[in-house]
């Protein structure tokens, strides 16, 4: 059926309201605190480590993000890999069902706005909040680096680190869409939070094990050829990549470790001719991580569309 009027009518006010609600909420403060606590340790310890390393490193700043310091066995990006979903879930798990429970939904939908605009406005508001939070974190890391390392970052480093920021926002977007999907499906905010957190734990704890078990199940008892071996390894990687966290860490690997030449499984023979440890130029790295980034974006769009379809069918009445 053809409907009239722009589907974007009313997105602006919803976006602005969500943004200001988020930025002034206590919840956002708690989430920020979380991120600082989880992020500060790795960053502080990597800076400690980096200060003692005297060898001239062309990508010193990027190391802040990636090295695993001796004191804390977790790098800044692995901490973020874990914590960004939590932030996104915290921002999105009650975005639609709370409107429903407060009985504001039917009143808002009786204003000239389509349901898609409401949902999209809310999503973009949440995404913007995430972006603002991550940008602040990013600036803090760079500032700390500037203070403690005493040398300014090079242009490429800033560009690569900025790429990291963009990828992180998309990664957050996937989880925000997931959280919002649950907020549309479940009327109870507690149930929706529980399901989103459950999925988060599933991907971080259970999925690697399940993927391994699946691969073992598929693998023949005895591996007889190289092809077989490669096939199994590729299956393992493909399964792991169903988790957004894997896509995120692979993309960051390519971006923040310029030496990375491949993100999949690779035989030593295929490496022939490549100069080991020579950093790739930025455009080559971008090309390398492109599939991962599009994977994240596609995931975000698919989940958001699912939320939209469910929302469209929902009854607005209590």
């Amino acid at each position, binding site marked *: *059926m*053809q*409907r*009239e*009027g722009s589907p974007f*009518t*009313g997105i*602006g*006010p*919803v976006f*602005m*309201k969500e943004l200001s*609600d988020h930025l002034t909420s206590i919840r956002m403060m708690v989430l920020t605190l979380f991120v600082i606590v989880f992020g500060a340790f790795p960053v502080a310890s990597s800076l400690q480590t980096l200060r003692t390393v005297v060898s001239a490193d062309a990508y010193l700043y990027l190391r802040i993000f990636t090295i695993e310091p001796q004191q804390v066995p977790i790098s800044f990006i692995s901490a973020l890999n874990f914590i960004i979903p939590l932030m996104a879930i915290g921002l999105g798990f009650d975005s639609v069902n709370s409107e429903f429970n*407060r*009985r*504001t939904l*039917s*009143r*808002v*939908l*009786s*204003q*000239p*706005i*389509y349901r898609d605009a409401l949902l999209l406005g809310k999503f973009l508001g949440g995404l913007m909040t995430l972006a603002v939070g991550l940008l602040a974190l990013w600036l803090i890391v760079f500032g700390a680096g500037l203070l403690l390392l005493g040398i300014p970052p090079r242009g490429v480093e800033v560009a690569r680190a900025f790429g990291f920021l963009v990828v992180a926002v998309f990664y957050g977007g996937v989880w925000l869409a997931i959280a919002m999907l649950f907020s549309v499906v479940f009327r109870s905010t507690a149930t929706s939070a529980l399901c989103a957190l459950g999925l988060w734990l599933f991907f971080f704890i259970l999925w690697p094990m399940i993927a391994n078990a699946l691969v073992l199940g598929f693998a023949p008892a005895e591996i007889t050829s190289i092809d077989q071996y490669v096939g199994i390894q590729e299956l393992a990687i493909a399964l792991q990549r169903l988790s957004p966290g894997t896509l995120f860490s692979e993309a960051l690997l390519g971006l923040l470790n310029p030496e990375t030449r491949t993100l999949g499984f690779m035989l030593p023979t295929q490496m022939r001719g490549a100069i080991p440890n020579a950093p790739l130029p930025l455009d080559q790295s971008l090309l390398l991580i492109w599939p991962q980034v599009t994977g994240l974006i596609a995931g975000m769009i698919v989940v958001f569309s699912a939320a939209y379809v469910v929302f469209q069918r929902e*009854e*607005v*009445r*209590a």
Partner: protein
Amino acid sequence: MSENVIEARGLLKTYGEARAVDAIDLDIRRGEIFGLLGPNGAGKTTTILMMLGLTETSGGSVSVLGFDPVRQPLQVKRRVGYLPDAVGFYDHMTARENLIYTARLLDIPRRESNGRIMQALKSVALDDVADKRVATFSRGMRQRLGIAEIVMKKAEIAILDEPTSGLDPHATFELLEMIRGLKKAGVAVLLSSHLLDRVQSVCDRVALFNKGKIALMGTVVELANQVLGAGHPLLVEASGIDVAAALRGIEGVQQVLPAGEGAWRVVADRDVRAVVARNVVTAGGSLSRLSDLQPSLEEVYTHYFEGERHAA
């Protein structure tokens, strides 16, 4: 001029096999207050939601101010104000901020919106709490804020679902005054309610819903004539004689029913008040009350559904 602002023809809503709204025809005229009445689950809310395009229709057509709520929902929603059953506002925001958000959604220019919001809040006597958080508001204040939203919107039609449910008598009275105020401003009002005597006092016309169908529609007097039969109901209070016998003897009296201690309800086919007074007094009784009973919606309602139950 009785131009229709809402026209529904064969409007239908099915949930699986069940027909929540069963092919109703309904016209709401410009500037009138129209009441939708009926027991729980009769289909009032569903009808309202279809008029606003908030739920899909399963058949038939509805036109609101000439627009089709299914295909042109934005046009309809720009011109129609809706106060949902148990309306909610954002608790962490003030009354004014809540209305500002609505004003933004309506795309009212900022210059204009401040004035319109203050005026609307004043019209529902909430101007002195404009900057208090809605969390502190009572049920009645929230309802009034909902009316303020409609006033600010300058809606041509106001659709109010159970606007008086959960309000105390005083708050109900105030709210009904505000609904009359809307009518005075030229707004057509469609409201649904259970509080029949209250509805009766404001509605120009009513429709009685039953199981998804409109059983009766018209002014309260018309409905009374249809359901209770034409006639003049009287209430007589007297003592000292066999009042019932004295009343039954009067020409034109059809029914004499006891209506409490020393009181009788009389239905006659003409105005028999003068004769009643004379007969009672000449028979030596003392007449303490003789009043013309307005047909009450409550009576129509109970009578109608009693008849339904017997028929079933």
